[in-house]
């Protein structure tokens, strides 16, 4: 096994062009898997010294570019994330526990793509894009296209995540992340990432992603769009939760049964929307 600590993105990409090479970000997942003998990369490319990956920046248009090496704690405290973008900081603050949040990075978490992790639904609800860089150059993908299957992403061998880009959220929208877990800091049994905007009684923005209930976050943009402009009453929410339920493909595992996940996910969606509405009406 080789260990390389490049200090630039270009050098990191170059170092990744090898058989069985892996990026080492915060280590929270990769090293745990190495310790358990689940993976044994032949080359470890540590991104620790790549300063360009460690920054988060708000762009003039209100979008926020978060470097892949930003730690969960930093993202949880990120003041550049505003309005609906807060869905991401809310999720970051609920990952694991303080020492792990001091280590784990958004790039590492996305690359591992645990289906029960907290970032994927938050990124999906925020309409985030993932910026990748490889030997062939750069590309960006919407979160929906990035998370493709159980623990599988659109990352090609030799590519790394450079940043996560959150588009501006409309002013006055609220972002929230609601997570059900067995104990504090565990992976989710089910989770809901929500970005909601209300103008009076009319829904002006709606994005709901369900996490931990399938290989990738589940969103129903079609129904969300249909619900825009109307009041978000019980029957409208029911339309959305019914549609979401069709897209769920949950596992039976030690955290909960698939049946329960199907049962609780719509309830969490209802709760998240109710709380967000209350929160928005309180601030208006």
């Amino acid at each position, binding site marked *: 096994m080789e260990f390389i600590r490049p200090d630039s993105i270009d050098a990191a990409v170059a170092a990744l062009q090898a058989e069985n090479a892996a990026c080492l970000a915060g280590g929270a997942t990769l090293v745990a898997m190495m310790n358990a003998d689940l993976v044994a990369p032949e080359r470890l490319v540590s991104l620790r010294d790549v300063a360009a990956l460690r920054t988060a920046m708000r762009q003039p248009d209100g979008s926020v570019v978060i470097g892949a090496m930003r730690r969960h704690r930093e993202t949880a405290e990120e003041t550049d994330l505003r309005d609906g973008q807060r869905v991401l900081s809310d999720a970051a603050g609920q990952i694991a526990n303080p020492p792990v949040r001091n280590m784990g990075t958004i790039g590492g978490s996305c690359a591992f793509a645990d289906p029960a992790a907290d970032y994927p639904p938050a990124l999906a609800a925020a309409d985030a894009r993932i910026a990748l860089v490889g030997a062939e150059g750069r590309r960006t993908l919407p979160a929906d296209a990035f998370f493709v299957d159980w623990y599988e992403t659109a990352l090609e061998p030799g590519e790394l995540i450079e940043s996560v880009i959150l588009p501006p959220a409309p002013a006055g929208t609220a972002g929230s992340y609601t997570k059900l877990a067995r104990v504090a800091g565990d992976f989710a049994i089910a989770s809901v990432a929500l970005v909601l905007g209300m103008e009076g009684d009319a829904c002006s923005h709606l994005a709901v992603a369900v996490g931990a209930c399938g290989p990738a976050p589940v969103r129903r943009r079609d129904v969300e769009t249909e619900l825009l402009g109307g009041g978000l009453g019980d029957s409208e929410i029911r339309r959305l939760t019914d549609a979401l339920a069709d897209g769920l493909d949950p596992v039976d595992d*030690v955290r909960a049964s698939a049946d329960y996940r199907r049962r609780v996910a719509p309830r969490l969606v209802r709760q998240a929307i109710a709380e967000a509405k209350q929160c928005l009406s309180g601030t208006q």
Partner: protein
Amino acid sequence: MKIAGSFNVAAPVELTWRAITDPQVVGACLPGCEEIEAVSPTLYRARIGVKLGPISATFAAEVEVLEEEPPVRVVSVTRGEEGGRASHIRSENTLTLEPADDGGTRVSYEADMTVTGRLAKFGFGVMKKKAQSLAADFAGNLEARLNEAASGG
């Protein structure tokens, strides 16, 4: 863990039976199967690669046919070992064929699979999903192959 499923193919039972008991056909349809050889009429050896996210493993597997009732039922046991990694898989499989209404065949499978060693520590629930999707891929491949044969292609 138990997985089960069924699928229909256009080929008649006899033809399906021949395909499903031909190691070369099975090997070609099995996702990740790198090589397969018949050691005896009831014993096959194969190398099978499995990938789940960042984890990959290659098993040296042995398939032993325990009971054969042509052309309707075959019971086998698969034992796989990941050389030097103390990781094992074992699967007891039953495959049943019956004529379908359209002249094709309905193929049903049941497997009781155990994974031990390092791979067993990784996401039990997802492992089952993966096993189900591998079984579905196998079914799809076999179906395509038989349908192709049935249509004379």
